[in-house]
């Protein structure tokens, strides 16, 4: 017997089509009754657009389901709780695990192989990042006293200028990959997005700190920018992330800890501490996905080493870390112009460079390089730090 549905006085202009659709979902043929004044006109017009056949019946309308089905050939975009090894373009922007209609346009998201981008830690790091977001307006003691000499303040401004430039690269380089990442790898996409938000916040606080006492910012050198520019030239996600996150941000982390410990005012110390917390997560993600990548494809290690050498070659003729930044760090750590303070500041900066090197070697070792390789490769890292 043909199942019957009664719309009562509900019109198709009031949502009545939902009941008809629901019935047709499970039955090929149904009988529709109702008392809405325009039901015959509305139902006929609706059936025509849907491809259903409609005929008047004794006490209503007999509707036969359309033979045309949008969902024929649809497929699941993988499983909701597990990233696939490869995400085909035909899944498009669909949520992982959604049922995707065939014929989705290719929006050009070539980072689609799990091996290239995935880290099992991504979800945890994202959750950690989301929970650790801090508000620049309240987290930093902007009103803390600034009592150091003017020239030390100039040094702080120079260091902030340098940090902003480097954080801009740290925002833009991963974001360029984010725009090419298949969203099937949701956790990685979210993590890269929140990393970009971290960098945006860092740029904000470094800028605000620089302007606390000064109307103008410091110097930006061609050599420093040349070093950052090589990061933009790298088309491979693994290599870019190796150079930026593992080596660059790793070194940067040591610099932020240095500022946390040696900056002359509480405001600078606190913003360096907070930024370092974020950067540590960025480094952790880089290490996690590269560690996995190297495990699955040991030849990647050779490519990483070659990338450091290539970058070193490209930067041979640049000055590397500009003298202004080096000197500014010394003065900032010294806090004043007395010879004893300058000696202390200088020693601290030399120690910083040593710490950066030892951190890089440690991370390279974690990626499977032996101690000698790690030492050699670390020595080739850009003198610009990032």
């Amino acid at each position, binding site marked *: 017997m043909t199942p019957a549905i009664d719309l009562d006085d509900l019109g*198709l*202009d*009031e949502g009545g*089509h939902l009941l008809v659709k629901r019935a047709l979902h499970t039955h090929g043929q149904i009988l529709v009754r109702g008392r809405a*004044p*325009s039901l*015959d*006109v*509305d139902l*006929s*017009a*609706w059936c*025509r*657009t849907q*491809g259903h056949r409609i005929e008047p019946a004794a006490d209503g309308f007999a509707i036969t389901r*359309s033979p*045309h*089905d*949008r969902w*024929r*050939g649809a497929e699941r975009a993988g499983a909701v709780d597990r990233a696939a090894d490869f995400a085909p373009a035909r899944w498009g922007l669909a949520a992982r695990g959604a049922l995707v*209609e*065939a*014929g989705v346009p290719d929006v050009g998201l070539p980072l689609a192989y799990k091996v290239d981008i995935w880290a099992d830690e991504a979800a945890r790091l994202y959750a950690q990042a989301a929970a650790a977001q801090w508000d620049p307006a309240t987290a930093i003691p902007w009103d803390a006293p600034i009592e150091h000499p003017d020239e030390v303040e100039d040094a702080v401004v120079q260091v902030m200028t340098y940090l902003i430039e480097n954080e801009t690269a740290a925002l833009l380089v991963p974001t360029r990959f984010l725009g090419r990442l298949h969203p099937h790898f949701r956790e990685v996409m979210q993590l890269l997005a929140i990393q970009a938000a971290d960098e945006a916040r860092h740029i904000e606080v470094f800028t605000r700190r620089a302007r606390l006492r000064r109307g103008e910012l410091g110097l930006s050198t061609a050599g420093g920018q040349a070093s950052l520019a090589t990061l933009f030239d790298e088309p491979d996600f693994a290599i870019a992330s190796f150079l930026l996150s593992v080596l660059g941000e790793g070194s940067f982390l040591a610099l932020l800890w240095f500022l946390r410990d040696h900056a002359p005012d509480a405001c600078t110390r606190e913003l360096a501490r907070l930024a370092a917390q974020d950067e540590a997560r960025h480094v952790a993600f880089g290490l996690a996905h590269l560690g996995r990548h190297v495990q699955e494809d040991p030849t990647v290690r050779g490519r990483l080493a070659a990338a450091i050498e290539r970058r070193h070659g490209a930067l041979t003729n640049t000055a590397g870390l500009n003298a202004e930044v080096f000197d500014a760090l010394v003065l900032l750590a010294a806090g004043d112009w007395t010879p004893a303070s300058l000696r202390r500041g200088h020693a601290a900066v030399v120690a910083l460079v040593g710490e950066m090197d030892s951190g890089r070697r440690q991370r390279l070792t974690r990626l499977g390089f032996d101690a000698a390789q790690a030492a050699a490769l670390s020595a080739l890292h850009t003198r610009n730090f990032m």
Partner: protein
Amino acid sequence: MRNTLILGAVAYDAKVVPIWDGFKAWFAKRELDFDFVLYTNYERQVEAHLRGDFHVAWNSPLAWIETVRLARKRGRDASTIAMRDTDKDLKSVVLVRDDSAVKSLAELRGKRVGVGAADSPQATLIPLLSFADAGVDVEVVRHDVLVGKHGDHVGGERDAVKALLAGAVDAACVIDGNRVAFAREGLGGTRVVHATPAYDHCNMTVLDGVPTTITRFRELLLSMSYDDPEVRPLLDMEGLKVWEAGRTSGYVLLERACDRFGTLDAWLAAQ
């Protein structure tokens, strides 16, 4: 380009370009050399068709009648080879506001009735034929959006319903499916007081002497499947599930309306 089969269509909306570009690519994959030309209005398209500027016209119902009549005047024959499933058995409806006391066409005598563009079969000519057949004189308030496009642009009908809801007219004439479609846009609160008999809408029109490649064109049109993800978005944009054989039995009402109102007289005389 000698063997290219060319279709004429009216650019009533920007989507016409991707639709026919998409069909062109689909035909090309099946080795049919196909192209299209777009016109800004149906009269120019019909004149170009008779002139032999292209081979097959994607015609509105009024353009079909124009083609038939102009062809007859020139001793030619027009026929239709295909139409959309959704072109068959449409109705136009006369709407009033939910709170209106009007229950029939006759009660609209002397009242203001909002219609679509002057050349819209569905929102003007066919519903006004219902009033004329019933001997009910009304004050017609036209909503001319893109005249020359034969009401393909829905704007005229929408304006008529807006006028109805604003109280500027006492009734509005639209195609049957638009009552519910407009309700989704927030233009609800209307009631049907009259539905016209069923009629047909657009068709693919050819003239005698059309190249034989038209057979392949028709075959391919009719073979398009809604299950094919490549062609489905084009069918969705063009508003059909499947192309069907053309028929000419569904244009009687519009023929009568044209005769009754002399819609085509001046244009035809000038040809």
